[in-house]
């Protein structure tokens, strides 16, 4: 790889972004009637922030899951498919059991949620077996998982609901933590919010701890960087990779089922489905965050914030180039890959590990 003349580095990029933001805020404050001012008032409004947190759920969780799989050496391109199957099955099971009722003192939304996570994990298991046991090309197998999910959800939906879109099952209620929710600024954001947001925040911390502070995390990194060494050290590379891929299924399942039951309340299965490429944004997000779980959470805030600002602008009747704004995450990740450097796929990512080789 040749060294490009200007590799600004991640820090320079962040400083630049910060400077632009500062100028924008100053302009918005100085001229509240201007375009910058309108944008500022939207960006500062509480409804934008709550929407941002909810929209970040599938992206952040899928990204954290993707980190584990890819760090272990298995590129999981099929994460979009995992979001689709978990979102759809969560809605379907909640509908079957009867929305609004409960079994064993647990609301049917939570049963649906659990099944959603389970289905996503089973798909991840299938993907893991195909990649690890049968040494399939990971990219092709991941694409297959995505395509199968893309067909399976509307297929099943048509059988049950006679339409690619499911019936509505309602959403999770907000969980309000007394006292803490009265706090200024963070109160309404972090302590009066639907449960999937708590799950997302908790999962980011768990993901970070697991990857950076435990033996398992070190094995995952070694399995992606130098599986031979890990094998020599007496750790079974296959089992580490199985665990990492299953974990990506669990995280993506939490994201898909949480998004479906907490935000959508129904699942539209036609076209690119209600997930709408969020799994691919998740891939962009973790590459942008250079495989750091907390960074992925913040990155998902960035991309979800963009989406929520754009939705608010549209609601206020501004003509927004929606389609062009949607490309921002994808352009960002290409810019980061090309100019910022440092983001580099794990050494052994994409290769199946064979203990008997050479």
């Amino acid at each position, binding site marked *: 790889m040749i060294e490009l003349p200007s590799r600004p580095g991640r820090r320079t990029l962040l400083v630049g972004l910060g400077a632009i933001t500062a100028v924008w805020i100053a302009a918005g404050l100085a001229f509240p009637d201007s375009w910058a001012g309108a944008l500022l008032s939207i960006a500062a409004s509480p409804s934008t922030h709550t929407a941002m947190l909810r929209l970040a759920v599938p992206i952040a969780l899928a990204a954290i899951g993707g980190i584990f799989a890819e760090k272990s050496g298995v590129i999981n391109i099929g994460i979009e498919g995992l979001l689709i199957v978990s979102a759809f099955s969560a809605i379907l099971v909640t509908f079957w059991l009867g929305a609004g009722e409960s079994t064993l003192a647990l609301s049917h939304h939570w049963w649906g949620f659990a099944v959603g996570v389970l289905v996503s994990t089973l798909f991840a298991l299938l993907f893991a077996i195909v990649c690890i046991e049968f040494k399939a*090309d990971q990219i092709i197998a991941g694409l297959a998982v995505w395509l199968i999910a893309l067909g*399976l959800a509307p297929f099943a939906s048509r059988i049950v609901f006679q339409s690619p879109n499911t019936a509505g099952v309602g959403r999770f209620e907000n969980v309000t933590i007394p006292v803490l929710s009265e706090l200024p600024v963070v109160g309404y954001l972090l302590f009066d919010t639907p449960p999937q947001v708590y799950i997302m925040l908790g999962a980011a911390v768990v993901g970070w701890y697991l990857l950076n502070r435990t033996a398992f995390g070190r094995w995952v990194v070694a399995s992606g960087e130098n599986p031979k060494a890990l094998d020599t050290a007496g750790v079974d590379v296959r089992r580490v990779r199985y665990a990492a891929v299953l974990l990506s299924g669990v995280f993506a399942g939490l994201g898909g089922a949480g998004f479906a039951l907490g935000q959508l309340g129904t699942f539209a299965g036609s076209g690119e489905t209600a997930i709408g490429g969020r799994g691919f944004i998740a891939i962009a997000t973790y590459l942008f965050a250079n495989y750091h779980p907390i960074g992925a959470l913040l990155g998902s805030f960035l991309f979800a914030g963009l989406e929520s600002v754009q939705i608010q602008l549209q609601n206020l009747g501004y003509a927004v180039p929606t389609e062009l704004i949607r490309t921002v995450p994808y352009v960002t990740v290409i810019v980061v890959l090309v100019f910022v450097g440092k983001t580099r796929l794990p050494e052994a990512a994409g290769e199946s590990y064979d203990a008997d080789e050479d």
Partner: protein
Amino acid sequence: MREDLERLLERLVHASVLERVAISFAALLAAILLGGVLVFVSGAFATCRSGLDLAGATFCYNPMQVYYELFLGALGHPLEGGWELHNYNLATTLRQTTLLIFAGLSVAVAFRAGLFNIGTQGQLVVGGLTTAVTVLFAASYLPSGFVGTVLLVPIGVLAGAVGGGFYGAIPGALKAYAGANEVITTIMLNFIAVGVTSTLLSWRFQDPASDNPQTRAVPEYAEIPNLPLVGFSPRMNFSLLALGFAIALIVGIAWLLARTAFGYELRTTGVQPAAAAYGGVDEKRMTVASMTLSGALGGIGGAFWVLMEHGRWLENVPDLGFDGIAVSILAGNNPLGVGFAAFLFGVLDSGSNSINTATDVPPELVGVLSGTIILFVAMPEFFRMIGRRYVDLEDSVPARSTGGEADD
């Protein structure tokens, strides 16, 4: 040096061609079997007046009927009375075949160079819009009628190739000169293509007479002409000329890969980048060149989608590029195989319409089927294991671990 490599390549190809074909067929069968089970089981969850009663459940769907509709419906039911060769279903099948040949060749060429081009979809979208815009622009300066056809169709196809080629060159250059993984960049560029083309459409090229997001229609004489007498009716949006061109392109690409210096360098870069570099191939330029060629083929697919199927560019571009990946993988990235695989996927596409009209089974089944086919083709090791259990293949099958790449 070069002769040694050539011999090595030849041996690898011939040693594995038979096995590859066998694996593709096995994958196809396995997917059909699994799909049949899926259809049968999901029938228990559907509601119907009459079905097969088994173990207290009513199974509404008959997999045999579904596959009958899928495979024979796509040809227009040749086994039933009153069959005509020039029927609408067969035209749909062959139209999809034609478009999938371009998309499949696009993926295959990149694959042979050791690059995974997931971006054929984006290249097809960009190429299609370039074609529509160029033809609309050029049509106002050129005569109409036969002369217009002779001039505009090649201009349109060329424009699609240039647009797609340019869009394919981007990830190629990013890979060659900045080390950006082409799998990631092409995925991202697919989404960027959708965003940018829709923005361009609403900014400048939207058909003012329509509420649908689409360009104005190109003049009728600028569409791919139909052959008189033997051709399909113009209402069926399929031209034998287009299929002929696609087949010619298959032969051309096969010849390019097998018999030219460029093809030799491309394949060597794919199999043995180090050896290729030692042999004097500029790897960076080869990466850009093969991605450009791949993108151009995808762009030609977009051009034919515009000039044959709709006569205009629509924002809602079907997933031909992703199906192209399936086609290429099923074909073992062999240009000649792409023709057969494209026909199979053309049948699947067209057959989904027959399933929709003739049965209660949701047509999305076809999406599941093609995903399953890819999944099975991606794991040749699975079939080798089964094979070894029943037949002693140890000597004849080289124990290779990777799937999907050609000549490895």
